[in-house]
């Protein structure tokens, strides 16, 4: 009998977050567009009313979906993203000065998060050299090519959506819903995960785990996934 208690399973999104949210905190949220979003955890953050959030996420959701929900309630003070073009409400709040925005190239954003989780405070990349992105940043030549120094990113909380997870916190993602989720899982001081299927240990193949349980502090089984499609495109037979 295998009866270790990992103490990672929570019964609801609200319960999994209630003692760790605070005004002014930094939250990383997985997802690309509306794909692979921690829908239930975002809803719980909305309900909590926590405010002045700095949010690190590739996109800002759309109106009524994803982080768009936290824009409606004006809970976001600052966003670090690579693309927010799908959200008119974001545009409005940005132009009126209600919200602060830091654009990172998508690969630089991903690598900053990966570096934050991996204990690397800074790295050099060619991305953004000669553009506004490298303005006021250190640049340096390696092998006669110019690179800009970028820093690692960590957050007070990372919210992550996985496909399957087990009691030990081991995670598996599905298709392109993987995106930023596994790296954000490594860069949260606390990482809370929602999964579609919650399994017992031993049900996942150890060779096939995308995120080892060490990165997961809390896990819930999510419900009622809307899995909205932003840009439905089909072909004729």
């Amino acid at each position, binding site marked *: 009998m295998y009866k270790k208690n990992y103490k990672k399973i929570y019964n609801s999104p609200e319960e999994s977050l209630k003692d760790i949210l605070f005004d002014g905190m930094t939250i990383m949220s997985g997802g*690309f*567009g*509306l*794909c*692979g979003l921690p829908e239930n955890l975002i809803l719980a953050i909305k309900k909590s009313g926590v405010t002045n959030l700095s949010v690190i996420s*590739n996109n800002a959701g759309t109106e009524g979906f994803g982080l768009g929900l936290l824009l409606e309630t004006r809970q976001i003070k600052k966003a670090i*993203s*690579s*693309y*927010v*073009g*799908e959200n008119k409400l974001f*545009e409005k709040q*940005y*132009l009126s000065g209600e919200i602060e*925005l830091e*654009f990172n*190239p*998508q*690969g*630089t*954003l*991903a*690598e900053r*998060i*990966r570096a934050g989780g991996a204990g690397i405070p800074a790295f050099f*990349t*060619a*991305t*953004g*050299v*000669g*553009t*506004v*992105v490298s303005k006021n940043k250190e640049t340096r030549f390696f092998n006669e090519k110019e690179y800009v120094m970028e820093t690692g990113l960590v957050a007070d909380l990372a919210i992550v959506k996985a*496909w399957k997870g087990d009691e030990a916190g081991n995670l598996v*993602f*599905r*298709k*392109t*819903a*993987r*995106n*930023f*989720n*596994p*790296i954000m899982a490594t860069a949260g001081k606390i990482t809370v995960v929602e999964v579609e299927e919650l399994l017992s240990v031993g049900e996942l193949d150890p060779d096939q785990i*995308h995120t080892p349980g060490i990165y997961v502090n809390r896990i819930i089984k999510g419900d009622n996934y809307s*899995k*909205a*499609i*932003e*840009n*439905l*495109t*089909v*072909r004729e*037979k």
Partner: protein
Amino acid sequence: MSWDREKMCLRASKELKDGDYVNLGIGMPTLVANYISQDLNVTLQSENGMLGMGPFPLKGEEDADLINAGKQTITSLPESSYFSSADSFAMIRGGHIDLSILGAMEVSSKGDLANWMIPGKMVKGMGGAMDLVAGVKKVIVLMDHNAKDGSPKILNSCSLPLTGKEVVDLIITNLGVFEINNGIKLLEYAENVSKEEIIKKTGAEVLFTN
């Protein structure tokens, strides 16, 4: 005359070689996929975390967990693989993608590219474009030769904020194919396009060898 969109895409598809790994940008570049020769083995990368991108799904077969970088529903192929955003951009930044085809607002004769923001208008963000132009081995711009108001998009220097500096290798427009290599050189005329038309419609000096 010049080339229509279909002919531009067809011409762009001729830049793909057997065995290439290719990233196609949003908009017209995405359409290039439809013109790739069946004889070539070309693998499409989508920077949100997929290699081996298949065609759009049939109606009713779409999967919300399977989208491309333009957030369009797509399908997989037998050789597909999925990976994280960090792994995807490690692939891009590390020079493993052979070719990227992107749209542009402006390109300079030095290969500077501007395609992500217009000052004074709402900034949507650069997405993965800066990473692609900095990391991919060969960068091709596929665009109309002139803006809607007729102003040239190929210039001595870009007026818009840059996406990348000295990154473009080739430009394919409705007027022809241009190489960037110590200036802009015409490689190929589109149908019924004259040297004079190109000179008139280009904001930078073009080298003609034929």
